[in-house]
Every structure is written in C-alpha cells, then in structure tokens.
C-alpha cells in the first residue's frame, strides 16, 4: 500500500515588505519559508496509518517548488516519510493552484497511491483547493476538511468526519482510493528526532521536471495586481505598555459600565 502526501512550502512575510516592481507579488527578499501547518497533520495521518499496519505502507511526500523547497521535504523525511519527490520547472513560476494540481496529478499517476492526503489549505494564500482539484484529474472520490477518520491499510472505504461550520461533524463513507484534505487538530503531529533530522539530510530526493510528466500546466487565474489594502480602521493606542494598558482599562470600563 502507498500513501501520497502533497506538501507545500509556504511563504510568511517579514514585518516590513515591499511589492515587486511589476506589482504582481511581494519581493522575494521579504519572505520566510516554512512547511505548511496543515501538511504537518496530513503527514502525521499518513504516518499513523503506516505504523498501525506494521510499517508496510509506503509514505511518499511530494512538493512542487524550486531547489530550496527541498527543505520542507527533508522535514517530512525526518518525521519518517519513506520517499520524497520534488517537481519543478521555471515555467511554473507564477502558476496557480490548479496548475500545481496538474503537476501533482502527473506524479500521482506514476505513483498510483491508495490514498492521497493533502492539507485543507495552505497558511499563506488559503485557497483550499489543490487537493480537490487533484482528485478531479485522477477521477478519485474525495472529501474535504476531514477532522477525524477511521481507516486501516487496505480498507475498501474510509469513514471520515467532515468538520462543518459551527463545529458540527458530518460522517461520510468514501470508497478508496480516495483523496482527502486533512484539517488541523485531527491528531498531534510528531516532532522530528535529532537522529531523524540527521538521517534525512543524507537521504536522496527524487527530482522531476514538469516536462518529464508531459502534462499541460494551465492556470485558471492570473494575478493582475497585488497591493497593501487601505490602512486598517483600528485606532492605534500609542505610548508605553503602561500608558497603553491605562487606555485599554478605560475602554473596558466604558464598554462594560464597570
């Protein structure tokens, strides 16, 4: 059995940042990279299925990104993933999530996993759509925002609980192979051990160019303009912490009539 876990290197902006001259993205000098928070949970879900089945299922992580996106794959290897694949092509610069899904589908077709566990969304742009777009390209059954699931390696179906608005859960049986998008809080992601981190540094990362996959990577949208929105409506309370706290105390008294 094989579980494919697509992961993303997400971008967090530094406190001060500038928009690129072409006005379509933030200047890369002001970006810090990290593994997407949701992907910690999808990887952990995969690892728990693997361990419950005595280690036999293979957990393969895949990312679409340039050379330095390798770091997030090493993080996953350190936590116990068996193999890591990175796909890139300079033509993918500026690609949207649907184009990324097309690349992932190319990998998934070769890997033929029994389960694909993606994150619900990424913490930088929160599109919440890559996993489900991928399911369409593979024509696989799917469920989004999975907050709990019951599945053992080899099962013909997975019982998921979709987490709805207001915290209500919706139990659904999905036949496998399936694509699920995994929600925060479904488990407690492990930390990588020092030993795991050391070993991961020496492990190979399989590299593919998007051209190897031979698909077309059309985007469904294009950024026209990126800009910093009008200044917030918040009235800023200035001064020392003592002065700020004094003003907050006043506001509290006014609002509560205390």
């Amino acid at each position: 059995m094989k579980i494919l876990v697509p992961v993303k290197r997400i971008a967090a902006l530094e406190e001060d940042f500038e928009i690129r001259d072409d006005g379509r993205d933030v200047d890369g000098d002001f970006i810090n990279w990290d593994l997407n928070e949701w992907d910690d949970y999808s990887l952990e879900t995969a690892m728990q299925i693997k361990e419950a089945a005595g280690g036999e299922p293979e957990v393969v992580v895949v990312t679409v990104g340039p050379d330095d996106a390798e770091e997030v794959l090493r993080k996953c290897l350190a936590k116990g993933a068996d193999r890591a694949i990175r796909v890139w092509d300079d033509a993918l610069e500026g690609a949207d999530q649907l184009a990324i899904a097309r690349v992932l589908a190319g990998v998934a077709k070769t890997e033929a996993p029994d389960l694909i566990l993606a994150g619900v969304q990424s913490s930088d742009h929160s599109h919440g759509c890559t996993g489900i777009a991928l399911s369409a390209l593979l024509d696989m059954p799917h469920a989004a925002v999975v907050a709990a699931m019951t599945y053992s390696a080899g099962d013909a179906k997975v019982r998921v609980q979709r987490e709805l608005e207001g915290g209500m859960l919706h139990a659904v049986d999905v036949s496998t192979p399936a694509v699920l998008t995994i929600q925060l809080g479904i488990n407690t992601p492990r930390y990588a051990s020092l030993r795991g981190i050391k070993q991961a540094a020496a492990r190979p990362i399989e590299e593919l160019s998007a051209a190897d996959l031979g698909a077309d990577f059309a985007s469904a949208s294009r950024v026209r303009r990126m800009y910093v929105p009008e200044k917030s409506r918040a009235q800023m309370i200035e001064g020392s912490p003592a002065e700020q706290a004094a003003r907050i105390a006043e506001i509290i008294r006014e609002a509560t009539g205390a």
Partner: protein
Amino acid sequence: MSGILVVAEHRQGVLRPVSLELVSAVQDVRGALGDKVTVAVIGAGARAHQQTLSMAGVDELVFIDTPDAEFDPEVTEAALAALAAEIRPSLVVVPHSVDSMGYAASLAIRNGYGFATDVFGVAADGAAVVATRGGYGQKVNVELEFPGASTVLLALRGGTWKPPVDAASPAARDFAFSAPASRSKNVEFISPPATNDVDMTAKEFILSVGRGVGEEDNIERFRELADTVGAALGCSRPVADSGWLPKSRQIGQSGKTAAQCKLYMAMGISGAIQHLAGMKHVETIIAVNTDPNASIFSVAKYGVIGDMFEIADELEKHFA
C-alpha cells in the same frame, strides 16, 4: 454572455444565510457579465427553499432533485456541470464553505473554468471578471483575472455582502440531470459534544488568546487576567487544538460565534478569516499583537502593537 449562476447552500433543511449574500454580491456585475441571475438549489426537497430565496435580484430559481437531501460532492458537481452546460453562465458563484471546498475546484478544473476561492470583491472589466481576495495571511489584496475563460467560478466569502431585503417572485423550474452513482455515502451528522463549560455565545465580554500565548503554562496567567477584568476566556483554534483550552472556548467558523459579545479583546491572534467569522461583528474589538501588519487590526476598533504579556501585567494593575 448569458447570465450569472448563484449556488445556494443548505444543510439539514435550513438554507445557509450566505446563499442570499451571494445574490447581492452579483448585482453590481449584472449587465456587464450577464443579465439574468439564476439561483440553483441542489438536493432532495430543494423546493422547500423556494420562498426564502424569492428575493429581489433573483430572476429564476432552479431546483435540482437528487437522491439525498444532504450534500454529496460528486452529485453536486455533476448537477452544476449539467446546469452550466445548459445556461452557459459567464459567472458562477458559490459560498466559500466547507461544502464548496469539497467540489468547487473539481468542477472548475474538469470544465476549464476560471477559478478563485475566498473572494471578497467581484467586479467586471468590460466583459471580463475581476476577483479580489487576500494573500499572505490577508496582509495583501490580490486582484485576479481569468484570461481565456468563458466561465469563471468564484467561491465567495460569507459575511461580506448584505442579503437583499425585498421579497420578489422569480420564475421557478425544475432541472433534471442524470446523477452519477456517488462513490461516497452520507452516514450521519454529529453535533459537538455538550459540555458544562461556559457558553461563549452568551458572553458580553470575551478576552481571547491565540498562538501568541506561546505555551500551555502561560494560559493560567490569562485566565487570571480574564477573571480580574471580568471577561470570559476564549481562544483561537491552535490553542484549542493543542488542548490548552477546551474546544467550547474556541471562537470562529468551526467554533463558537461571540453572538452576544459587546467587547472582544484579542491577544496574540493574527486574525485569520475563520477566526474573524466568529467575532468581527462585535462592536468594540481591542487587538494586541506584536505584528503591526496583523490582519486582526483591520477589524479592531482599537489596536495595540505590543507584547501581550507586558500589556497583561500592566492591565492587571488597573483592576486590582
């Protein structure tokens, strides 16, 4: 150019209010993108929502009967693909919701639609759709275009547009399609377990802590602060997911709505849209955050750029 399709959402027999907000969202681009606004309702018994949806701004209601009354991603997608093939809309809008996260991307990529999610601005440039959403943790706005797409599917953020107020009598019809044999089966809805913890929806003054609290040991300090100032202690999702506070204290889309709250103090909370969903309506919001660009400041009435621990220490002194 042949119209705009709005997809209504319902659950357990109740129309989700966001459905009507979408009707308002498309009024500004009607004309530019298509004259007729069609609202589709999918599911067994869809007709039950006819009256609620008979509002100004709707030209036609289409009811699509399916085997199950509740949401199924594959059936929903097939129903909408069939309807869109008939009416050839230039714009399709769905709520940006847990349900739509389960089918919208699939519908878009299979049919070659332009596509964007969590959109809070819809405009037309000539006959082309322009959508605005946030980026980089809502710190920037991103304007998107959809070159070459004859249909654009947008998942729109709830709570952005006001629903129409006037009732109307739009035309209504049924639409039949051949539903695919779904590969998933709905089992049951499970309500969050009842607790005897406080009811956050009833609290008028809430002090919430987010990931900025750092670690579990620090929670106690803010519990004391909340007690001292007379607030109920709430939290953002990571704090509840870590088990530092019970889930019943979580404010936001998948938690509680601060329905009766008049004063909300957010400390160490960035202001993710799902958190805002539970509190942005509160009249007086005070936000304390070390990051001057945190998006929580865009909904707060008062903002403090600073360390929540320092502010907590100082604030306590005023209520001793």
